[in-house]
């Protein structure tokens, strides 16, 4: 009984906070400012380290602002799907571990985690970043299954973009462990593209890129755009309780593609050198 009361008190106080925060962020927005002093189209400082886990076939640690994500890639030989017998398989999972935020609870992934995992997966899959036809060992019997596991370590907002960056960075460092499995020589994973997601939020009609935690909590609408090296789009997802107009959407897409190109240049283009 006591415990329940405590919980209610806590949840009420959170709501009050979020109303205050909402006003604060909204008023700042009207002055063209953001809580951390960034401009609307400025991404937080980011950092990518690759090959951080020796046991994984590929790995990357990404820090986007204070958000930290660790992505590990493992490969296993397994059976292909019956409708794509000659192609490898990609499986992406994302866990919002309780270590990352007081709001996260242990247990199976819920809709937010599932959504982010699927959006990240969509980017990697639909861009054709991994050449799945080269992951076939014996057609119809055995192919490489690529497991992309995203471990969220600290949630300071925009886990989505950190995950996407971590996933492709980790894939770029991945080696197919053929020797260990007795299937010939180790080779680098065939990666053909570098899809990157950039999330834009709408607060009171203004679009801001790379939301921090408070901005993300307070915003009505998020739009995530995954773009490729050639500037084409391979995935998109609107998320959140609000709506977007055409103009906002097109502007967000433009913004996201531009930012993705910059981030790709800074963090990804030199990984394979």
């Amino acid at each position, binding site marked *: 009984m006591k415990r329940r009361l405590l919980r209610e008190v806590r*949840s009420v106080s959170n709501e009050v906070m979020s109303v205050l925060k909402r006003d604060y962020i909204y008023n700042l927005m009207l002055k063209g400012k953001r809580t951390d002093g960034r401009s609307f189209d400025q991404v937080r400082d980011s950092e990518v380290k690759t090959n951080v886990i020796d046991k994984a076939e590929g790995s990357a640690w990404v820090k986007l602002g204070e958000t930290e994500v660790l992505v590990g890639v493992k490969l296993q030989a397994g059976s292909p799907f019956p409708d794509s017998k000659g192609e490898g398989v990609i499986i992406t999972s994302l866990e919002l571990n309780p270590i990352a935020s007081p709001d996260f609870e242990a247990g199976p992934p819920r809709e937010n985690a*599932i*959504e982010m995992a699927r959006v990240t997966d*969509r980017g990697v899959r639909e861009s054709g970043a991994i050449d799945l036809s080269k992951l076939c060992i014996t057609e119809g019997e055995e192919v490489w299954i690529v497991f992309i596991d995203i471990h969220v370590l600290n949630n300071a907002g925009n886990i989505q973009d950190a995950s996407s960056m971590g996933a492709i960075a980790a894939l770029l460092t991945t080696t197919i462990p053929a020797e260990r499995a007795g299937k010939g020589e180790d080779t680098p994973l065939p990666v053909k593209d570098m899809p990157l997601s950039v999330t834009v939020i709408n607060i009171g009609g203004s679009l801001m890129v790379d939301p921090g935690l408070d901005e993300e909590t307070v915003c009505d609408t998020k739009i995530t755009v995954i773009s490729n090296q050639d500037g084409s*789009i391979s995935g998109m997802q*609107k998320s*959140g309780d609000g709506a977007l107009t055409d103009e906002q*959407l*097109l502007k967000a897409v433009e913004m996201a593609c531009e930012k993705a190109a910059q981030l790709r240049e800074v963090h990804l283009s030199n990984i394979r050198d």
Partner: protein
Amino acid sequence: MNDKPEKFIDENGLRLDGRQIDEIRPMTIKIGVLSRADGSCYMEWGNNKILVAVYGPRELHPRRLQKSDSALIRYRYNMAAFSVEDRIRPGPSRRSTEISKVSREAFEPVVMTNLYPSAVIDVFAEVLQADAGTRTAAINAASIALADAGIPMKSLVAACAVGKVDGKLVLDLNKPEDNYGQADLPIAMTQDGEITLLQMDGNLTQEEFKQALEMCKKGCLQILEMQKEALKGKFGEDAAIEVPEDIDEEIDIEVMVECDIGESEDEDLEEADVSGESGEDEDSEDTEAEEEDHEVIEEEFVDLVEEETADEEEITEGSEIREQ
């Protein structure tokens, strides 16, 4: 297994099923098909068969989920195990969880949840037969079911998808186009063209995306028209009840609040069957935007809401389930 057609669009510019590139599949709508639900809609769109029920506003349990200032919307997209070629495992999957989430968010901007604090509005969308475009079909049907339940909304929501096959944009993908197409872009929007759901996978340039958005908009407008027609078909007589034209919105809302809160909804613990998930969805629609009906739609919709709240009997409306 690989039955990918060589060409999706023939030399006459027609698609595999004979449609134009900007033509939607035929849609049939039945309203009030479930007697226990507060609102329901059965929709066939191409070969998709979708049944949507709305329960509520009703009391929300467990109580800790209640929101003190608004109603909670729950949306459950569920596929029957037999709805697709290869049986799918019943129960929620990652795919259906995601679709449920984005579909719920497609309705958040329009449903006036602030009128029903602490309550819940449950939307159950069952895909009985799937043939590309189930999520958009479910949204189109849910929109009607919500109206049928008399739940105040700022607009109906219409959804359809644009895809790319043979390098060309097409509206309302059919199954082969969905399976083998190069892109798939489901969108839901309100009558004002506000986008409430957007997903995309595949590959589009920014320019193509712009065109696709335009195309989708026309499709959605057409669907909106059909939704309105269907609602008028059912509520047409009631519509004859005169509503003073100069009624102002504030007053309307108060009236609604009184009516709706006054009656406690029956709560049927309905647990829809569990099913798995499946393939794909998209939808689409066709062209001809009739711009002029924007305003008309608005007015009519307001009328509908008024009517529904005016006579409460509709709330437990419903006729035979199976006409199909």
